[in-house]
């Protein structure tokens, strides 16, 4: 059964002083027993996630809220297995498909079709499986003959169409989304929204970071509120959003009372 479970998960980032990134300076420091270039040994660590514990199960659609720098992206990367926790335990059952950056893996010099192939291979498909899907992706993007042109000749809207079409061409068990909204003409945005909803419907678990409360209210059944790397709230959407709103808009709440 698909699930995600975190137990006391923390993530610490090392922030290196420029000297600590230099091999030569490290050699000098070690060679002189630390008498020279003392500072090269110093590194500061930042706790991006602090002691998180929660469980997600089949059918959960979780909205991730919090300020910039609260650790949303870090958590998404932990759930995508990109960052391994510095401490704590993590159990993920199910194939994870992160959609963190739409433009990921897109090469401007390659043609649209080549980019479709590249992304397919990165996702673990064989060439045959890609060929089977390519037509559907091509149809979705509506780019027609442009697919055999290098991506650098595309307008930004066309680029987005292709990236979106390629990125959403798989049905993952666990879908991790980071703020997937962008430019594009209204017609395409409708198509994109429909596609995204379809993708969310097909997934067993969805974790979605967004600043749009509207989208969370529409899609999610749970929210996770992160504040400075700590879990402030985990539970149902209405309560979570209300508490978050109260904390971020103290004046408005006071005025209402």
């Amino acid at each position, binding site marked *: 059964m698909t699930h995600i479970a975190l137990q006391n998960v923390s993530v610490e980032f090392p922030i290196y002083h420029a000297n600590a*990134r230099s091999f030569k300076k490290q050699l000098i420091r070690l060679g002189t027993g630390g008498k020279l270039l003392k500072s090269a040994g110093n590194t500061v660590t930042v706790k991006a996630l602090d002691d998180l514990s929660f*469980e997600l199960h089949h059918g959960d659609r979780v909205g991730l809220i919090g300020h910039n720098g609260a650790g949303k992206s870090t958590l998404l990367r932990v759930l995508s297995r990109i960052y391994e926790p510095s401490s704590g335990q*993590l159990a993920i059952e199910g194939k994870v498909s992160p959609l963190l950056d739409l433009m990921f893996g897109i090469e401007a010099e*390659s043609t649209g079709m080549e980019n479709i192939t590249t992304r397919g291979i990165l996702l673990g498909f064989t060439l045959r499986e890609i060929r089977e899907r390519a037509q559907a992706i091509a149809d979705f993007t509506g780019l027609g003959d442009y697919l055999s042109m290098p991506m650098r000749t595309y307008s930004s809207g066309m680029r987005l169409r292709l990236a979106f079409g390629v990125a959403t061409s798989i049905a993952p068990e666990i879908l991790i989304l980071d703020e997937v909204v962008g430019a594009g003409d209204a017609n395409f945005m409708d198509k994109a929204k429909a596609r995204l909803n379809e993708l969310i419907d097909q997934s067993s678990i969805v974790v979605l970071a967004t600043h749009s409360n509207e989208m969370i209210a529409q899609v999610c059944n749970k929210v996770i509120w992160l504040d400075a790397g700590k879990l402030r709230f985990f539970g149902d959407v209405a309560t979570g959003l209300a508490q978050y709103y109260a904390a971020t808009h103290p004046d408005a709440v006071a005025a209402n009372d």
Partner: protein
Amino acid sequence: MATASSLPSASAIRYPVFTRRQLMLRDLFEGCMAWRVWLLLAWQDIRLRYRRSQLGPFWLTLSMAITVYTMGFLYGHLFHMDLHTYFPYLAAGMLTWNLISLLIVDGTNTFTEAEQFLRQMKLPYSVFVLRVIMRSLIIFAHNVLVIVPLYFVLHIQLSSACLMIIPGLILLSLNAFFFGIVLAIIGARYRDLGQLITSLLQVCFFLTPVMWSPTILPVKYHLLLDFNPFTHFVEILRAPLISTMPSLLSVEVVIGMTCVGILLAAALLTRVRHRIVYWL
């Protein structure tokens, strides 16, 4: 204030327990299995680099040919060598050195170059090491054409020794894989390693018999050659390229180096694999 109180208290979740060594081995295994990914990335690297040029990667062949032929002519006369033997010796040596230095220089940048991928999706680290090896081998395959005219012009008899190219390339690739992991990790952590390596390689190039033949070095200095691992790495590929058997000592040293590489790579990858992405 409601916090994480909605956690189910008794859960049936089993947390997987893997040792760091198991995770390291899994990285290597899954990396090798993902051959589609590293083949594609390597091929894409080559294609993108030469997409807008008429000759494509054969530019490499051309520039290598110019280097080797002019150097062969000049140094052959400078060292008073017999051009008939010196030309192929130099060409094969330069081709091999070029491959080795490409593997080392690109090897230090493996993870920094792959930052985009490593920060966006979960892929084994070894995939990117294999990508660099594959890319270097493709470039080598283009460069190696430089030596073909010499076989005809100088009437070099091709023998079964040429077949030793295959084990030679395999041994070099194995070393590139294990030492590549070490270099890539250190290169991701210390960003000036690349520059350091580039200048060291320059020195190694002159210390290693590539442009000059060991025969012109007085015998009492030959220890200098035997203790230089590059001598042996060059020898195992250069010898079969000019249709001779590599010396047994060189083969032994290279196999020994492979073992050292395996130990180093395993130890380092076990210790820091889970931290690499935080360094990017």
